[in-house]
């Protein structure tokens, strides 16, 4: 395990999606008092060395970060933007509900923006983990464009089109899902279509995921206890799992190999796996965490490996063989990938493998708000806890060989 400290509190973590060689994670910090940063964590697998670069993100504290699948250098963040009031107070105010703020007071909105990392970051600003406050100023991110949505409310997250060319993003703002088209250089963004969640009460998207299946025409969102599916072509709702969790749904993820399978997690300490064709009943439920589950991630290549992070400070790696596309624990050939579900029926010929908890990682001391698989090495993952500790772990060797062989 490798534990670089980010010094500042942090919630936002992503792997550099477009990078397929280096094991690289991006972390966005959350601080109200200092300039926020984006830490680029590089892990040298062979030498077990972690190196860290820092880029300044002066716009505000980062709540969500997401890397472009097409361009290594491009990323989006959701951040709190301060809007200083006309009658300035002694401090910068921030509020999630600008509507309720009296005009004389400060207000802060959460916005999304597309950024480009300066090309020379790799050479310029290496830091050792022990010395976070180097004297020379770290480089700034280059702002490409704002996903300006002040009319639509606060952005909770920005999603890139999976495996796309980096031209489309979706931002979830309060109760709106906005599909943006980016220009070639990503310097300009225009809303091409939008969907609005209607209903009584103050509805707000808490999480979302762009499905990599169906030609990337589907989106899944979570608000309160419900999970909704959207068709991006018509921007209309296609399914809705009411009461998917007993309490708030915190995160979603699509199975990368099985197009109808979806994982969700929430405040009822459960992780649920859904077949969206049958939304009455979850396919499977895990109840391993002892507090809210904040993040759930399928492994990109071996979808039986499921990673969850929870505010009980634990990261749990589960082996969900029974609902994976590789029910036998071995890699299916590329040809078979399409009919992964057919393999399901042959299961009885082989000895059935049990779903199991592979490992529980207890290195964190505080709530874990984000977990992420590396995009370069399918056997590596990172988890980030609120106190700024990033832990990189490997899938146990025995299991790795069991899956591969």
């Amino acid at each position, binding site marked *: 395990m490798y534990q670089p*400290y980010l*010094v*500042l*509190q942090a919630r936002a973590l992503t792997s550099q999606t477009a990078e397929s060689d280096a094991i690289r994670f991006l972390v966005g910090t959350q*601080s*109200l*008092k*200092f300039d926020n940063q984006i830490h680029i964590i590089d892990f040298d697998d062979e030498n077990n060395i972690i190196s860290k670069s820092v880029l300044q993100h002066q716009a505000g504290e980062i709540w969500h970060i997401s890397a472009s699948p097409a361009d290594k250098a491009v990323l989006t963040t959701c951040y*709190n933007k301060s809007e200083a009031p006309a009658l300035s107070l*002694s*401090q*910068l*105010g*921030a*509020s*999630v*509900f600008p509507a*309720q*703020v*009296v005009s004389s*007071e*400060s207000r*802060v909105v959460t916005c999304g923006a597309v950024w480009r990392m300066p090309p020379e970051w790799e050479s310029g600003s290496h830091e050792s983990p022990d010395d*976070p*406050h180097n004297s020379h100023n770290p480089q700034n991110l280059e702002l490409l464009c704002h996903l300006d949505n002040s009319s639509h409310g606060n952005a909770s997250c920005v999603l890139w089109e999976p495996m796309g060319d980096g031209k489309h993003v979706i931002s979830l703002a309060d109760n709106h899902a906005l599909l943006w088209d980016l220009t070639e250089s990503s310097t300009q963004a225009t809303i091409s279509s939008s969907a609005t969640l209607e209903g009584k009460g103050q509805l707000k998207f808490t999480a979302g995921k762009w499905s990599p299946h169906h030609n990337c025409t589907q989106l899944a969102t979570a608000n309160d*206890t419900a999970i909704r599916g959207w068709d991006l072509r018509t921007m209309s709702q296609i399914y809705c799992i009411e*009461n998917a*969790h*007993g*309490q708030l749904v915190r995160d979603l993820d699509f199975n990368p190999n099985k197009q109808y399978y979806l994982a969700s997690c929430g405040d*009822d*300490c459960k992780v649920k796996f859904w077949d969206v064709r049958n939304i009455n009943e979850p396919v499977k439920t895990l109840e391993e965490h*002892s*507090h*809210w589950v904040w993040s759930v991630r399928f492994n990109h290549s071996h979808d039986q490996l499921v990673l969850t992070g929870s*505010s*009980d*400070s634990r990261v749990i790696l589960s082996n969900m063989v029974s609902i994976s596309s590789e029910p036998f624990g071995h890699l299916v050939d590329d040809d078979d990938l399409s009919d992964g579900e057919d393999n399901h029926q042959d299961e009885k010929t082989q000895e059935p493998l049990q779903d199991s908890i592979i490992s529980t990682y*207890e290195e964190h*001391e*505080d*709530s874990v708000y984000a977990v992420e698989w590396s995009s370069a090495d399918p056997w590596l993952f990172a988890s980030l806890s*609120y*106190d*700024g500790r990033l832990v990189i772990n490997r899938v146990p060797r025995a299991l790795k060989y069991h899956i591969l062989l």
Partner: protein
Amino acid sequence: MDGDINATAPGTTPPDTDPARKRRVHGMLKLYYGLNEEGKTVDQAESMDPCDINGPHFDPEVYLNKLRRECSLGELMDQETCMVKQIRSLDSDMQTLVYENYNKFISATDTIRKMKNDFKKMEDEMDCLSTNMASITDFSARISGTLQDQHAQITKLSGVHTLLRKLQFLFELPARLNKCLELQAYAQAVSSHRRARCVLQQYSHMPSFRGIQDDCHAIMDKLAQELRQKFRDGGSSAKDLSECVELLLQLDEPAEELCDKFLSHAQSRLEADLLGLEAELRPPLSYGPTAVTDPYTGPAHRLSVEPTAGSPTGPSSLNNPFLSPSSRTDILEFIDRGCNEFVSSLCLVIASYQELFVNRPQEGELASKNIPQMAIGKLHAFVDALATRYFSLVERRIQEEKSVGDNSLLVRALDRFHRRLQAVAKLLPGSAVPSQGTEIVVRAARERIKQYLAALQSFYLNSLTDVRQALAAPRLGGSSAGVGSHLGGPATGKEAPASLPELLSTLSASILNQIKSVLASVHLFTAKDITFSNKPYFKGDFCSHGVRESLVVNFIKFVCQSSRQFCESAGDRGGSTPPALLLLLSRLCLDYETSTITYILTLTDEQFLVQHHSPVTAVTALCGEAREAAQKLLNHYVKVQGLIISQMLRKSVETRDWVNTIEPRNVRAVMKRVVEDTTSIDVQVGLLYEEGVRKAHSSDSSKRTFSVYSSSRQQTRYAPSYTPSAPMDTNLLSNIHKLFSERVEIFSPVEFNKVSVLTGIIKISLKTFLECVRLRTFGRYGLQQIQVDCHYLQMYLWRFVSDENLVHFLLDEIVGSTAHRCLDPAPMEQSVIEVICERGATCIPVFLPLTVPPASLSSCP
């Protein structure tokens, strides 16, 4: 020698009188003549000594020499005189003998002479006799010769006479038969006909005989017809009937046909019985008229019945178990009727049938036809068919017996049913009927057990509903009482929640009573006077498998399972189950685990003398299940209560603008509400669960720990925030702190005591508070408000938990996180916080739990 004899005769007469001497003399004579009776071997043995003077080998020379050698002179003299004396006596003896024998010889000679003369005369007479006899023989032969002819004639005549009489019988037969027919002396007719039948058959080629035979046939046909008619009429008594059958059989009527007829005749009667039974089974077509005519259903019933008149099997007949039997006969009556009518006539039929066809003496040709086998086969088929119908009726009736109120009626009915079938078993060994009947009994018993189980289950669910209502009712005014108890002492807290233990004891007592009464009802099945209760096929299976497993064990399992379902169905969204019910059930299951299950099972085993032939569910397994259920319920209770408080806290954090809030003047109402709710939960749990152990703490925990927490720790945490190197230190400090504190399991299983439960609830609530705080941004006063709130919680919550450091740690985290999320972290003075909190504490009694004080409301969005 003769002279010797004569001379000694007179002298020897006196010694003759001495028998010994006489014998000796005879012996000597015998010896002399060689007439020894004893045989020669004795003589030889005796007489080998040549010195033996009496022996045959006596050698005088040797003897003399011996004497001379051995004896003295005196002795020789004595010997000599002795010898002389002996010789003399011998001489005299001989004389006597000769004299006697001589006389006898003389008389014998005389007799022989006389005989010679007599024989000559007799010979002459015999000759005369033989000639006479010859002449008699001659005469007799002559007489027989003359009488020969006449004798032959007489014999012939007597033969003709017999024949003529037979012929006369034959010729008179038709008339006689007719007469018999007229007089209905069927038996005589049949026997007459039987006598003549062979002859007629033999001589049927002769026209005259043929005529007679035809006549007889005609008559006998008529007779048979009449008999059959009589047989068919059935009005006749059993004896008549049997006579009838016997005669018909003698008339060569095919036995099979007779059997069939007999049986079909019996069947019609039995079917009438069955129809009668079935008519009782069939519910009355319309309730209206029944209700009017039936004296048992009074006017009160009529009202409830009439609306359902359109639907005969409407819900009222099912819902009201006391109504449906009263409108008809009860099961005992039904079975009684079945037994008295159907079973007894069936027995009668079987008996008479066996009398007629099976057990009758076999004679002549009838024996060869194997009638008994055929007849028995037919009888079995017949009885089976009818019994099956009867059984199906009985079973239908039993199935209608849904009310579990009075079991004795059913048991008695079954007993009677079973008992009466034994009669059939005796009459008809090898029949399947009794075993089928037993099966029905067993099935009925099993069915009954199922019904009792269902009744128990519904009783349990109903009691739960009652408990639910009882819980809901006082709850309306209960919360204020709960608050009162929190500060105003335990006395005021009694009204509403005090009913919890009462409810628990009522619930468990009523369940136990119900189980006991059910066991008592079921026990009727095994009473001694019930015939089937002692059958091994019934008793073992019924007791161990039926009562213990199906009834008791299943019920306990049901209780556990239904309790668990409360957790599962209500798992999402908080659920509709009132938390108090969860708590109550948890305690109930725990009580079951500790004592009740063992008690019930022991009771069952004792009452039913269960022999564990087949493996039965162990007590420990059941206890384990109950404990698991109790644990699950309690965990769920903690979760639900924790969630309720969490939601309050969460709403309070999420819906407030913490940046632009005003300076705190009071503890927020929601915190007071949290404390109130925690207190009432504490009271509630305390009613059912023991206190539990807590870590020792000082007498004034809240003050002491708070000061540590606020002054020393807080200052080290917040002070560096103003220097550039602050983040590092903060993190280091917080991490070092965490290294030494244990990891807090938020949703962890709790123990069965109050402190553990409360700890669980408070953990869940405070952790939620923490997570919510981390998602918000605070202004200076926001932080201060949180400080005040946390201090307030600190003051009150520590007393509920097992380890107060847990509360401190979590509250510390909350304030720390708030400080991190604060734009202007300027903490409030500790003394001010204390003043505010104490002021807040004193105004608690005026709060109503559902109202928010206006002061805090205004600042609350």
